[in-house]
């Protein structure tokens, strides 16, 4: 087993045994090498997204956890949020620049749930139209500008 698989096995075990509130791994989606995951998340109670269900797609390279995972919203319901583009790409610094090998699928999911929870108004990012038209399919190939930590 490669060190990436070993690490992801451990993560999967922790996530299925003791899943954080509103987060669950879709075990049917897992590939044999664990290089792709789908995680179901639910908008937290008393937030703008209460009761809504979303799906996050994770892709890992063989260099994980040194390479950050590619993470985006997938499926029919993409949250309307100032840091989430309508194609599912997420502007969140821990997914690129501030990724650390000590982070995990779980900590990424929790950051995304908390990003949704602190949102005060459902609206698209201001540059959504041009971004979605010109961006790469891989959100890790975007040079993100992180400027606003309040939402």
């Amino acid at each position, binding site marked *: 087993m490669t*060190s990436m698989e070993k*690490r992801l096995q*451990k*993560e999967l075990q*922790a996530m299925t045994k003791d899943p954080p509130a509103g987060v669950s791994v879709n075990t049917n989606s897992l590939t044999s090498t664990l290089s792709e995951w789908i995680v179901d998340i639910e908008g937290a109670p008393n937030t703008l997204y209460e009761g809504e269900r979303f799906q996050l797609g994770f892709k890992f390279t063989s260099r994980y*956890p*040194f390479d950050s995972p590619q993470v985006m919203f997938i499926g029919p319901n993409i949250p309307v949020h100032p840091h989430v583009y309508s194609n599912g790409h997420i502007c969140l*610094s*821990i997914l690129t*620049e*501030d*990724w*650390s*090998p*000590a*982070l*995990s699928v*779980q*900590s990424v999911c929790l950051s995304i749930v908390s990003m949704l929870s602190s949102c005060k108004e459902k609206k698209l990012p201001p540059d959504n139209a*041009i971004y979605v*038209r*010109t*961006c*790469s399919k891989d959100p890790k*190939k*975007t*040079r993100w500008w992180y400027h606003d930590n309040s939402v």
Partner: protein
Amino acid sequence: MDQNADASFDPSKNYDEDTLAQQREIEKEIAASQAMVSQLHTFDEIVEEYSQEDAIYRQKIEDLKSRFKNLRKTRGDGNCFYRAFGFAYLEKLLNDGKEYKRFLDIAQKSKDELIGLGFPQFTLEDFHDTFMDVVKMVENPGTVDGLFQAFNDAGLSDYFVVYLRLLVSGHLQQNADSYVYFIDGERSVKEFCSQEVEPMGKESDHIHIVSLTKALQIAICVEYMDREGEKCNSFKFNPFESLADDTDTAPAFTLLYRPGHYDILYPL
């Protein structure tokens, strides 16, 4: 930059992919051409390369030659401080059994302290296990060559670097009150750690060195080779100076700092 100033800028085109591909290329080139930790070099071997950056370095290398015999280079990938620190210290422990025992104890206990601070156990354990494997190479019986191999094996070397980064982060968070005023920008200590300490490749500054020497209780010396003056300035990081039983602790090893980079120095 004003985008309109560039006549060829096309706002409907995506430039990010090219820019990032270029960055990856540069990283690959660095990885292919520089060992994570190099063999010993003499100053005559590196003087031409180092003085290309600035002619003043030629003079400063003469100054180093009067006090040091060799140097070991580290890869310029943003992790150089941690790699230089780790290698130089373990190399020193090869000949200091008493200090090794002290360090082993601190290293072993550090895992639970970090978990106590909220680092997730299952990711931390991996890094700690590999860190301890590398540390224990000092005793069975350790050789410089064994350490050299380990520090050039990404599967060990990078894990070791991650753990040192977590130790720095842990120390800063435990002592947040003493460090909060040394952090630029309106960031909390925790934010600073997740942006400037924990990610791989983020360079180290004074605050990182202070934290690591305090977390592990190791005194070190850094020779600063900057563009000012004629000689290198040495600076001692002594984690014991605030303690009552202050003895003049000899630095465990000396690093060479050139703006943005750390190498290891070996005294005459």
